[in-house]
């Protein structure tokens, strides 16, 4: 069954959707959308470094994404506004990454594959990495769920309950770095943030509780991956952008449903 590239691609897309759903909810609730973007951009530098040092792309991307996320966490609130800091770091990392790739003599790499993903080329080994990463992210967020949610609502409320919101922020940062690293192959660095945010945003009008929103986001993400891949096959369009388009249409639909409900 895994011999079929469409099956492998679907499983890869589902893996990313599963990890992105609960994480994406926190990204939306905490207004960290740009943070996700920045971490993903920085990962391109990780890709360049892993090619130069001929190590696994996953490890390189994970390392740089983690470093980037930690740097931002440490520097935030010290002089520069968060979005300025993210803009500087993310785009510098992306630029340095692109320049570094050009120095790699003898390696002809298809940069587009990392910017937009190459889901149809996912190997069985890639699948293992994606699902292990997704499992880790879901387990991590599930384990810290209540503490994360309390810190998201109010930091002082968290402190008063004996929770350290800074530690919870690190948990999210770590989960984000893993998700970025596993998703590079599937949707590419430019569209990772879309897989985080759009399913969560589409799930919002359908949900009454945080848990409900995370599950709805997961279902929307999985459906987007399956339908998007099928559509890309039928219409011969690029796979990752098609998946994101399906998610975007879902967002539009649930928003309209909400609008109709409000009018009545």
């Amino acid at each position, binding site marked *: 069954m895994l011999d079929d590239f469409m099956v492998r691609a679907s499983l890869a897309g589902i893996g990313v959707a599963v990890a992105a759903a609960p994480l994406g909810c926190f990204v939306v*609730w905490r207004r960290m959308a740009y943070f996700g973007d920045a971490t993903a951009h920085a990962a391109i530098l990780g890709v360049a470094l892993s090619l130069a040092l001929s190590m696994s792309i996953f490890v390189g991307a994970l390392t740089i994404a983690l470093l980037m996320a930690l740097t931002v966490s440490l520097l935030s609130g010290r002089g520069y506004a968060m979005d300025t800091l993210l803009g500087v770091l993310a785009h510098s990392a992306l630029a340095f990454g692109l320049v570094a790739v050009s120095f790699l003599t003898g390696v002809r790499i298809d940069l587009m594959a990392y910017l937009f993903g190459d889901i149809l080329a996912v190997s069985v080994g890639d699948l293992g990495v994606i699902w292990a990463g997704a499992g880790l992210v879901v387990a991590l967020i599930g384990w810290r769920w209540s503490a994360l949610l309390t810190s998201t*609502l109010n930091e*002082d*409320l968290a402190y008063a309950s004996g929770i350290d919101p800074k530690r919870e922020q690190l948990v999210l940062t770590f989960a984000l770095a893993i998700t970025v690293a596993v998703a590079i192959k599937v949707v590419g660095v430019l569209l990772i943030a879309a897989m985080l945010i759009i399913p969560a945003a589409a799930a919002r009008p359908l949900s009454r*509780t*945080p848990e409900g929103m995370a599950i709805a986001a997961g279902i929307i993400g999985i459906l987007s991956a399956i339908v998007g891949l099928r559509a890309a096959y039928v219409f011969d369009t690029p796979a990752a952008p098609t998946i994101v388009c399906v998610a975007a249409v879902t967002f539009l639909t649930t928003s309209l449903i909400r609008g109709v409900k409000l009018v009545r």
Partner: protein
Amino acid sequence: MSLIEVEDLSVRYGARTVLSRVSMHIEPGEIVTIVGPNGSGKTSLLRAIIGAVKPAQGRVSQGGGVKIGYVPQKLHIDGTLPITVTRFLKLPSGAAAKQIEQALTQAGVPDLAKSQLSQLSGGQFQRVLLARALIGTPDVLLLDEATQGLDQRGSASFYQQIEQVRQATGCAVLMISHELHVVMSASDRVICLNGHVCCEGTPAVVASAPEYRALFGTGTGGALALYRHEHDHGHDHDHDNCDHTHTEAAE
């Protein structure tokens, strides 16, 4: 043993010292109010007590097994986060349905269990925050400007609710407020803070202390008198050396 004991506490943010050598304590069942101008370190004191800021010096200790219920100043619920009142009251460690029902009743909002947090009015929201603090029957309630954003009637009825809770549960209350006249008449003790403890004592003692008058003017002494009994209303007519802003505005 006191419920909460603050000894020689100093708090610094970078090079700025916001609290210097503050000592205070809270005994079971009493209502203590902290008053002080903006930037006087009131919120920092409360945050040090819940462990949100680390003391630069001194220490904060709690009696053995003392439970603290904390009502934050303001809580912004992002519109993207769907959450019902019941789910909110279960954070972070879960609470039985019966506890939730009881807490909501004590806070005066028994019917809101199924409502979305983002759709509550200001007064309802404060009461839900109060209900959350009441879960697990705390020994002391900490309230940080809990009536900010409520109109005068709303905040008066909120304070009545606090008083009822204290009578029902016997918990102590430590609160910060800028509404001197309302709060001070309900307090057992008032601590006037301005980076350090300026003065402390019963509301009447604090209101007549020179340190307090230097911070708030003598006008507030009159405001206090309005809410107390008739026999000290002689203060009101003492306009000779009074920089009462209302009088100036009228002239």
